[in-house]
């Protein structure tokens, strides 16, 4: 339960960052969040938050735009269900965030090797 707030915060930050800047912002923001608040965030949580952010934006889009129709058309091009492409988007965001966080973790560990970095390791 105590992870919910940081998770929601991270999700909002990723969503805002995505609105503001292109995709490389995800690993950068992820890394920064982990470096700034290592006790609050973990790579896994940040991955989930980034995925939730992109998924949330897509879900929001479906409220006013034919995203489902587009997904179906795109899925047809690559012979996949449209939902698979949506899932791939979420997965890419999660992977970018996780990668950024893990790299930040390594940097932080290298800078101060005695520091306990986060909870799930």
């Amino acid at each position: 339960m105590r992870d919910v707030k940081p998770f929601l915060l991270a999700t909002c930050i990723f969503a805002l960052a995505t609105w503001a800047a292109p995709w490389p912002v995800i690993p950068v923001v992820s890394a920064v969040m982990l470096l700034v608040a290592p006790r609050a965030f973990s790579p896994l949580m940040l991955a989930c938050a980034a995925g939730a952010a992109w998924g949330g934006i897509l879900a929001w889009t479906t409220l006013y735009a034919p995203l489902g129709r587009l997904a179906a058309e795109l899925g047809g091009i690559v012979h996949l269900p449209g939902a698979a492409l949506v899932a791939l988007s979420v997965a890419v965001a999660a992977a970018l965030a996780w990668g950024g966080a893990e790299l930040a973790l390594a940097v932080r560990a290298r800078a101060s090797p005695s520091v306990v970095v986060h909870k799930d390791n």
Partner: protein
Amino acid sequence: MIPSKPRFILALVVLGVIGYLSIAAPKPVPPLAPFLDPVRGVWAVARNAVLPQTAAGTVPGLTAQARVFYDLRGVPHVFAASELDAYRALGYVTARDRLFQLDLQTRAAAGTLTELVGPVALGVDQETRALGLPRAVERQLLGVDTASEAWRTVEAYSDGINAYIDGMHAADLPLEYRLLDARPARWKPVNTLYLLARMGLTLAYDPEELRRLRVAALVGDRAADALLSPRAAIQEPIEPNGQTAPRIDSTPLPPPGAPDTAAGALALALGSATRGLDALSRHGSGGDVTLGSNNWAVSPARTRDKFALLAGDPHLDLTLPSIWYAAHLSAGGLDVYGVTLPGAPAVTIGFNRNVAWTFTNTGADVMDFYAESVDVAAHPTKYLVDGTWRPLEQRVERYRDTDGRVFATDTVLYTHRGPMRRAGGRWLSMRWTVLDRPMMIATFLQIAHARSADEWLSDMSTYAWPAQNMLVADRSGTIAIRSTGTFPMRPDNGRGDIVRDGTKSASDWTGSWPVSRYPGARNPAQGFLASANQQPVDPRMDSTYLGADWPDPWRAMRINALLRADSQATVDDMRNDQTDPGSARADLFVPAFLAAAHTVLAATPNDSVLHDAADLLGAWDRRYTEDNERAVLFEMAMRELARRLWDELIPPGDSAPAVRPPESVIAALLQQPSSVWWDDRRTSGTVERRDDILAASLRAALGDAKRRYGEPGNDNWRWSKVQHANIYHLLELPSLSRLNIEVQGGPGTLSPSSGSGRAGPSWRMVVQMGPDVHGWGTLPGGESGNPASGRYDNMLRSWRTGTLDALYFPLDSQVLAGPPRSPSLTLSPPGRR
């Protein structure tokens, strides 16, 4: 805990792979993360699919604010202070809906597709440039009067397109660019000329000489003349000839002659030179007639409401988005509704408050070939004319890839006639009206203002290409038609379907037809006018060569029959006629098949297969409705008939005729039951006559149909299971296309459906010229090029069923601005938003 080294390495790998796939992904894979970015990536295409209730943009050059309202069908209504402003706004909204199409079509005509899609398009670009289209456009541009109203309009339209491109955000990029990882180039006014040249290629490219040479190579010159004659075997001309029924030529067909080896060699050369463009010929690559259009108009006296009616039904390649973009333009003295070609600032087919107009393709012979003599066969620099060597113009063509790097070059040679190509050891040059004169956009701008049919025709007098059968009706009740375009005059016999001697200047064109000689009619006594690509004028009235090997007149016969029978025509009649499932072709051939079957059965009563086939065909109502289960048998019988009848045209070693003469020639042959053409020379010891071939074709058709579709009565015999319309996306991506669409109609019906189903009605329109002009229409798709948009294919239903939609043509913007509010776009000059 310190993070583990494997996780660190895995993170590096994950980011590296995503980074690589996002920045340096090998084409055609789109860059991964930018593509899937939910804000700027492909998903933004969904957000752009919906027209916002209000939107704004700036367009340089606008003199005042312009308003655009979108009606329920998604058609933009442009209200502007001046005509130039209206065309600026048209450019903007066209780019907003059709940006990729604008780019692709223009590049296709300019021979620069490789710059958009890469070296894969090199062959297409080389063909385009070898035809001389880009050079012709460049020369036309040099001759443009840049101060003219027409050119200023082209520039205004260009301003509108560029204003949209310049104002685009990353999220606005159309789907196709994302798939290709490309960006749109800024629009240039010359692109409009490229686009129009492309229409010339689509509608006026027809190397008639090639088909004739192929026939002459097999059966001699005299037979070739008769089979691919300048005189269509069935006369139902556009210009009424005073007859109340089609006239079938009863002149006996000359027998096959000796093969002409010289023609054979020339056919090989010409065929090799034009192979890449076979599909563009109206005969298609498989001998399948691919394009066909209809138009007709009825005088007030023959309509129920006593107002002139006009129906337009141009048939072109079916694509998504559609080849046409519908729009209403209102500005000052301009108030016009119709369809535009994306890239050209003019309503091509449509109506204003006084006049309605539409076109079908004339199909006149406007392209000739000349056998040239050159100084050095391998690398010529000069060609011979009247005993004097003239220098060849050499033009080096450079092909660039998507990064702008030149990756291929070739050289195209030109004589004074046009481009010259080497094929089969010979050099052939080409003269073509499309390369000769600019297509004058000014004519289309003028006709939008026409107040009467006569004024409209007068405005169109300078129109050059592609030659069109132009039909017009006005509110006073006048209807008129005229085949209009540059029709070359040639020396000696005037024929254009022969390869001429390039070493003589006397072989060159001597001029062009004066407008006064163009085939046409105005308010004819019969009370209606119709064209369907048939021979425009009965050779008994004017035998001057205009073309040869004319398309079959089945659609013309059917529409004339329907119009003759209807003295109280209504809008619904016109609409229904456009998808009429009846067939003049079936009406002519089915009785012939049945009579032949009965004759043969009288001699061989135990022929149960023929008996069954005749019973099945005899039960057919000769209509190509979707649930019809007999049309398939007739179609197979017709195919079999052509195969058996034209055995003389099968080249040695082949199994199919090199050329299939028009079916109207077969219709004429039906009157000659003992003609030597009926004999199938592959059956030694037997001399077949008409009834033998017809009966054998019918018998074989039933066998084939059973093998392919099962027993009669099987659901697979349903016409809708056999023939479909297929509307492909411009990139031919099946999921963005609409395929296997069940439609009513078959070969030769007014809404012809045949072959691959990739050509068909590109815009259907009916206009009633009453005190208020009312129009109905539909497109095979919609207005938007965005596949996620409901406006991408929202008109497909009315197109498929032929119901047409009422076309909204409001007098002023207030109607659209008031509740319920339509989505609107406000365009302003820079700095005045």
